[in-house]
């Protein structure tokens, strides 16, 4: 009897009662999970693990930032002062708003309100686009100022800062040419970090379209909220990355020049 499929131990008749799980026959329930609870837990756990990999992904960049900021402190201060704090602050508010609507979306899915869910997802998407739009304006500004690393990068503004017409003083502490060269490292990191963040936003927006479409057809109105919830985790993670990027890139050591 080599082919007999004997799996359970013969002495487990009394425990075999556990076997007769009440199998919930919801359409989203996957066959290989014992219960829907297990499926949901596995999904959320998987998402948190994925976010952990994302932390490591951005971690490499943050490490590089930390290192070079210590080495080239003056260049980082001057270069950081070139960023547009107003636009950055507006973007921070927009992103927090977007995260707020996402949280409301999760709530709407949990209380099974289809149209509210769709509305909140759309609002999340709109604010996501707004963020990327402002980011584009900022990138364009850098392009015009020759602050994009590479062949056209220009350090003259850091060596000979423009003179303020009112005070007659330099608007910025001038840097020695070799230190001014290091502003390129700052902008390299600026573009790598905000660029990677923007890529995550774009991926998120694509997923938002897909989720909105599914929500519109009522897929998440019957108590099945796992995709919304897990996407919410992702979206909040992207927000949080920005909440670190904004002070590190825009605000750190921003001081009014006397």
């Amino acid at each position, binding site marked *: 009897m*080599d082919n007999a*499929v004997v*799996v359970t*131990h013969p002495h487990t008749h009394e425990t075999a009662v556990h076997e007769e799980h009440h199998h919930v026959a919801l359409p989203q329930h996957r066959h*290989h*999970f014992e219960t829907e609870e297990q499926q949901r*837990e596995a999904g959320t756990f998987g998402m948190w693990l994925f976010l952990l990999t994302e932390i490591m*992904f951005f971690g490499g960049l943050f490490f590089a930032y930390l290192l070079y900021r210590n080495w080239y402190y003056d260049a980082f201060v001057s270069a950081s002062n070139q960023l547009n704090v107003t636009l950055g602050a507006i973007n921070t508010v927009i992103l927090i708003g977007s995260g707020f609507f996402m949280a409301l979306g999760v709530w709407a899915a949990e209380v099974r309100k289809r149209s509210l869910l769709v509305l909140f997802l759309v609002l999340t998407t709109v604010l996501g686009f707004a963020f990327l739009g402002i980011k584009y304006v900022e990138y364009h500004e850098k392009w015009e100022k020759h602050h*994009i690393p590479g062949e056209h990068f220009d350090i003259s503004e850091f060596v000979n800062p423009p003179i303020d017409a009112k005070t007659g003083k330099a608007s910025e502490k001038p840097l020695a040419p070799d230190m001014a060269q290091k502003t*390129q490292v700052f902008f390299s990191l600026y573009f790598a970090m905000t660029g990677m963040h923007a890529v995550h936003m774009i991926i998120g927006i694509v997923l938002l379209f897909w989720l909105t479409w599914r929500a519109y057809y009522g897929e998440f109105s019957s108590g099945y909220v796992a995709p919304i919830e897990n996407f919410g985790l992702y979206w909040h993670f992207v927000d949080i990355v920005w909440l670190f990027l904004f002070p590190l890139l825009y605000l750190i050591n921003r001081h009014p020049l006397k």
Partner: protein
Amino acid sequence: MSTTSSTIINLPDQRTATLPKRNYLNNEHGLLSWLLTGDHKRIAILYLISITFFFFIGGVFAGLIRLELLTPQPDLMASDTYNKMFSMHGIVMIFLFLVPSVPATLGNFLIPIMLGTRDLAFPKINLLSWYLYLAGGTFTLAALIFGGVDTGWTFTTPLSTHYLNTNVVTAATAIFIAGFSSIFTGLNFIVTIHRMRAPGMTWFRMPLFVWAHYAASVLMVLGTPVLAITIVLVALERTIGIGVFDPTKGGDPLLFQHLFWFYSHPAVYIMILPGMGVISEIVSTFSRKRVFGYTAVAFSSVAIALFGFFVWAHHMFIMGVSNYSALVFSLLTMLVAVPSAIKIFNWAFTLQKGSITFETPMLYAFAFFGLFTIGGMTGVFLGALGMDIHLTETYFIVAHFHYVMVGGMLMAFLGGIHFWWPKMTGRMYPESFSKLSAVTSFIGFNLTFMPQFILGYLGMPRRYHAYPAEYQVLNVLSTAGATVLGVGFLLPLLYLTWSLRYGAIAGNNPWQATGLEWQIQSPPLTENFIETPIVDHEAYDYEWLAHKTQQEVTTVG
């Protein structure tokens, strides 16, 4: 040892075995049923086919390298071509063979069954990771066809970003994509091990194979993203000229080394840990004994994973890191030898007074013991600061790495493939041929790489296609060994394919092993288990198996 009296030495008679009518292989038909499958067993087979393909591609490069080194003069190929050969050999073998080898094939196939569940937690992500692997492989082949890469597999900056006009970005894309394949595999394993265990399957009842994969998965999940961002930065530096690693713009190439080795050192543990898991299963099965010091072996996997994250700078001793950090990293490197030795000693004690038989998987396991021990010990030489300065960037390090990766991992992989072949296909491999191939690869391997230790110690640098004439004898030996080794690797490909049709029918449990995977039919059903098993015994409990087998016999009458 009182338990030895009850161990089973008689293997079941396979002449009475029949192939089950319904199994995961014949459940559905057609190419699409394979390409769109969510079944972890089918995905494992898909992986097995694709990594075998890339293994032989990488092998061809190895063969050409050895052929060039047959003579001191550069006569077979130009130096640039030679650079491309060893770079492609490294990239293909590491990212497309060694990293996915055991986890993606055997791990994929076995972990759900060993845990008593029907599939991995995320079957679609599992399939996605195979497609990502294929995409990574395609980009690698593209880089090859468009003219190859000659940075070495390490992508050292600024060489890779500034001085070469080969297909660095294509190869970088390949590694980036293949990396995500590995991240998703690791993520799937961790979630499955945490959330999908059958009732009664506690953490310390899990087979050591699962523990080893758990440790390796943690490394995959935490290490690979760092490689991904490093590769992105290299690609950005090469294409649009950002300056994170570029000294002319204020960047530091050493930062690249730190970030690269932060992944690539743990990566060697990603490669070896699953192999160690395979060895634990094989040693226990063919000694008919519980693995000695189960808990110690389980925790040593976790310890290797943990220590593995804090030794990366030992690749950089000659790159100008500070003496103090070199000292600390050297000490930490020595520390890794402790859990590795715990494993080796515990396996040795498992053998003690066991009822040992020498089936092919066991031969591979013995090859692993010897070769991995040599590889590990020479690793301690390289971890010692003074020795490292003499030995690094020579053939000594090439030999060390190959002793661990080929002698360790590849032997474990082949041992595992032979061990679970009956389970995966339902048929036995031909025993005499496979023993021949195991012995051939052992002899061939030593002949190839033992001379390289001496060459390296004498000072022959790696990555050169010409060398002084006095090194020729040892190089000829090495090339001759590579030929034997090639035969040893080609043989399994032939007879395993043959056995798919003509092999003896295996039956459920040809080795009388205790794992859950051996208690179900071979090949298994798509759903693995008809009803969820309830686990009420430890791993490697041979008394439980003997008792169960007796019960089966009495019920059949």
